[in-house]
């Protein structure tokens, strides 16, 4: 099959929600295969309908189990759901163990649910590079809600705010005191806070610590993040959590969503530009001998990386002007 036909077929498949087409499309994007950019370009106009919900929080807070319960409840309410669950890639071997499905077993045969595990491939910030585009594929496939589960690595895991409309920070009792709650990073990005494992001791203490932290916020916006106690074990609080997500979605529609989207689109454009400019300059430089010569010089300590970079850039702009003339 010629590549353009293959792309058309995949796009058609994704738009009618065909799981195999969705799966292949996500892989192509994840592996940066040649068709990836074209696929994103064709699907992009069909996105923007799904509510993208990010779930972050420390490892063991119960994110995957909570998602299973949320998805079941959403299905009861007649919604279709996509899940992208991210787990870490080993920086040493490049391999990954993706175990989030273990907690979501019952969902895999539900025709209204699509779950995809994704390794970070060493992308920092708790998401994989392809996570955003994968959630777009699921959006285009007609899912009402797309849930993005971050790695769960820790406090600086904030990339999810660039992808999700609503961010849920999931915590559990006993993970830390009010000093932990005041720290920067993860605690700043929650639109909704969840104290999971509410069947355990100290859940009330954890919830009030978070509420106290939220009270300290100096910058008031129109949205005050609610704190919800949930138990994936008993099902307590799941319905309430879904109401909070809906409310936040409605709040965003009062104009905040456009604001967030605009900011996001600008950031994304900058990222895409950076990548393409770097790529093209690097390819150009590598194709000439300069690259090798300067690497050797740095290795021999005859120059340093910054001076070498200046030298390379100077040569690059000179050759560009020459080409034009």
């Amino acid at each position, binding site marked *: 099959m010629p590549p353009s036909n293959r792309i058309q077929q995949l796009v058609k498949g994704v738009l009618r929600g065909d799981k*195999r087409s969705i*799966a*292949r499309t996500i892989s192509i994007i994840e592996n940066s295969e040649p068709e990836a950019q074209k696929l994103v370009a064709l699907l992009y106009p069909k996105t923007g309908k799904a509510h993208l919900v990010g779930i972050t929080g420390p490892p063991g807070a119960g994110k995957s189990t909570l998602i299973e319960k949320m998805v079941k409840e959403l299905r009861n309410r007649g919604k279709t759901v996509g899940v992208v669950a991210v787990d870490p890639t080993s920086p040493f*071997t490049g391999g990954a*163990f*993706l175990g989030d*499905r273990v907690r979501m*077993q019952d969902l895999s045969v539900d025709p209204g649910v699509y779950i*995809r*595990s994704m390794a970070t491939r060493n992308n920092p910030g708790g998401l994989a590079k392809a996570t955003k585009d994968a959630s777009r594929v699921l959006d285009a496939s007609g899912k009402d809600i797309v849930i993005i589960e971050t790695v769960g690595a820790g406090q600086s895991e904030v990339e999810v705010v660039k992808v999700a409309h609503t961010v849920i920070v999931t915590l559990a009792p006993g993970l830390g005191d009010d000093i932990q709650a005041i720290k920067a990073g993860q605690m700043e990005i929650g639109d909704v806070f969840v104290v999971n494992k509410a069947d355990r001791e100290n859940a009330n203490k954890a919830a009030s610590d978070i509420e106290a932290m939220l009270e300290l916020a100096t910058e008031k916006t129109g949205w005050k993040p609610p704190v919800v106690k949930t138990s994936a074990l008993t099902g307590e609080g799941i319905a309430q959590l879904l109401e909070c997500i809906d409310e936040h979605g409605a709040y965003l529609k009062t104009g905040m969503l456009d604001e967030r989207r605009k900011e996001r689109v600008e950031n994304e454009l900058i990222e895409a530009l950076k990548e393409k400019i770097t790529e093209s300059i690097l390819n150009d430089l590598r194709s000439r001998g300069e690259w090798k010569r300067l690497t050797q010089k740095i290795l021999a300590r005859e120059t340093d990386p910054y001076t070498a970079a200046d030298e390379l850039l100077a040569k690059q702009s000179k050759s560009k002007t020459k080409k034009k003339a």
Partner: protein
Amino acid sequence: MSMKKERKIRVVIAKPGLDSHDRGAKIVARALRDAGMEVIYTGLRQTPEQIVETALQEDVDVIGLSILSGAHMALFPRIMKLLKKKGLNDVLVFTGGIIPQEDVPALKKMGIRKVFGPGTTTSALVEFVRENAPKRR
């Protein structure tokens, strides 16, 4: 989107049926992870439908089935049939666990490429997967 190609072998390690011993499955998953592959673990007590659906949604190249219960001759034909039905004909399937030698020819005939018994080294397993995973789809 980077132009740099990164193609990883994706494997699902599944526990079909009712036995609840997954030490072997976890060792296999760990060995493949350490060999640079992306390993999706399903957890215990999976139906053939769940395993095939997982393989489909995760777009895997390889399925490893770990079984100790003796129900392989009942479960594996259903898994292989479902894979064909869903168009996943090129996925490499191997199995390991407690499987009598006399069942091996029948399993191979239904499309299971390799049956690993007790005492298999992880390096032999990794080598098998590397060499036999479908190259490009």
